[in-house]
């Protein structure tokens, strides 16, 4: 009852021996995620977390030995593009990149390359994906969400946690929660996720969490109007953001008067989406 990841997902962690990589591998395992391998060039043959996860020198070797089918990347920004290329060339069909701060020109090249390879990237600069009760491939705290029928897609991290938590307090659960990340150029976008939620029999309603910058929310609104039969509720952050300033996320910036919260809210409302004034209003609107 999910999209992208479930209990059968076999996860490979790139950068598993780093501080973040090790901590979150532990968290993912504790959640019940099937983490089958780690990669750290130069440490192949070792094991981490009390012998739970084998480490390999390369993605190719890890995939051959373990049958991993999803990669998650905790590699610093300078080396993350290489990690993505490596995962793509090892024919991993789904790659989640948590790393924040990858230069945008690197991401344009990565995206152009991945489009040719036909594999799916989630992120970068994202919290990953959580299918409550089945698997978490990312850093979303597992205890703030319960299984349910609401699909969630978001450009943000902690704001998503806020929404999951508000849903949980209202007794509502999530089918899958996807963080697509706050960078201007990313892999999976709103439309990809809306499309998957529309096709997922276990998702009955969808929450879309957007923010200022770019036109992805407007494109999502068009898609919703034309293709979605399931109800969508949205929230857009940054109504008070001044133009020309980057609000933390590399992609959260109003440029040349475009990308404002008001435009996005208008486009979504025109597509029949109910837009919440604040996150705690979302459960009511659902």
């Amino acid at each position: 009852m999910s999209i992208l990841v479930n209990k059968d997902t076999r996860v490979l962690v790139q950068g598993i021996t780093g501080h973040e990589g090790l901590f979150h591998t532990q968290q993912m395992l504790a959640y019940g995620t099937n983490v089958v391998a780690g990669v750290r060039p130069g440490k192949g043959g070792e094991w981490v977390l009390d012998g739970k996860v084998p480490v390999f020198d390369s993605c190719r070797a890890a995939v051959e030995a373990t049958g991993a089918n999803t990669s998650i990347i905790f590699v610093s920004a300078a080396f993350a593009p290489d990690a993505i290329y490596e995962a793509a060339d090892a024919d991993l069909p789904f790659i989640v990149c948590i790393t924040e701060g990858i230069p945008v020109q690197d991401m344009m090249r990565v995206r152009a390359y991945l489009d040719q390879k036909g594999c799916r990237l989630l992120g970068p600069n994202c919290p990953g994906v959580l299918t409550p009760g089945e698997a978490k491939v990312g850093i979303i705290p597992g205890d703030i969400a319960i299984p349910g029928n609401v699909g969630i897609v978001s450009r943000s991290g902690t704001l998503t946690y806020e929404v999951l938590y508000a849903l949980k307090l209202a007794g509502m659960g999530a089918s899958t929660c996807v963080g697509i990340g706050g960078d201007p150029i990313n892999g999976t976008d709103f439309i990809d996720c809306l499309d998957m939620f529309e096709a997922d029999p276990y998702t009955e309603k969808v929450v879309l969490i957007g923010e200022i910058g770019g036109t992805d929310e407007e494109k999502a609104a068009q898609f919703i109007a034309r293709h979605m039969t399931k109800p969508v509720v949205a929230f857009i952050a940054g109504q008070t953001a001044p133009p020309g300033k980057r609000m933390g996320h590399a992609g959260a910036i109003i440029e040349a008067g475009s990308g404002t919260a008001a435009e996005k809210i208008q486009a979504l409302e025109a597509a029949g989406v109910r837009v919440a004034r604040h996150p705690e209003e979302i459960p009511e609107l659902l």
Partner: protein
Amino acid sequence: MKLHEYQSKQIFARYGIPIPGGRVAATATEVRQIAEELGGRVVIKAQVLVGGRGKAGGVRLAKTPKEAEEVATQILAMEIKGLPVRKVLVDPAAHIEQEIYLAITNDRTARRPVMMASAAGGVDIEEVARTAPEKIIKIHIDPLLGLRDYQARDIAIGIDLSRDYWKSFLEITRGLWRAYVECDATLAEINPLVVTKEKRLLALDGKMLLDDNALFRHPDLAEMRDVDEEAPAETEARKYGLSFIKLEGNIGCMVNGAGLAMTTMDIVKLFGGEPANFLDIGGGASAEKVAAALRIILSDTNVKAVLFNIFGGITRCDEVAKGILAALAEVKPQVPMVVRLVGTNAEEGRRLLADAQMITAQTLVEAAQKAVAAARR
């Protein structure tokens, strides 16, 4: 990060783009010397990181070194959109026959670089985009292939550039592409690129924006940052790895995560308050970072209340609480403070703050309402 005109043109020159042979100066006396060395008429241009310098009177012509000194004295005493003019660029005046707009930037929607050009150069290109978009030629560039010469020729044809200039136009486009790629620019713009009476192409003005995320591999460019041109609090925040933007309101906000930080500002406004800032302390915020953040918020004398909104994930609420206590001991704030801790180790965090005389809140709405009420008191 924005570069000044003179810095952008220095970079262009390194990539073989012809620029006027001017120099930058900080005093009127230097301007006079430069004008004497250059000989002939000069243009004196205020170097501030905002648009509309020309309209504000920050770009002026001088016929003699004496006039140059007088004009420079006036420009160096100016403020343009709130920014004092600290430097001027002194360029030899060009004899202009035609003005072209030429730029490379990131097209976020197409997910690739785009080269844009217009025969209507020398004016505000956003204005042209609004009123006469057909006058702007756009060609997308495959980031894996780079700019191809035929694409640059298509641009030259599109803007009706005389064939006499194609060769030198192609050299300029190649240089601009290399400057854009090798500096990790998000914008490399020549406006105007002029055809002179002497039948040469010349980049009269230049503007570059650089990707902050790429500065780690460009230490030389990172040093070009002009900290005089930004709010001191923003410089201080960057030192601690905090993302901070000053706003006009009176409720200071400290939040973890950019999306939640924007949402916190929005909800303060929704309940009748005005946020004083955007501040994201980031993931896994340490006590030291929290203390620095509180100092920065309170350095704004408009702040009448502070709202802490922490949703613990990787960030642990007890760690943030310790940071708040350390900061309180150091800064001794006189304004009321509202705190909301949720998520990882929230109870431990609340226990630590129990004696700190802070106003506590459970929900986001409650936190916003209490902060707005506290700021009015």
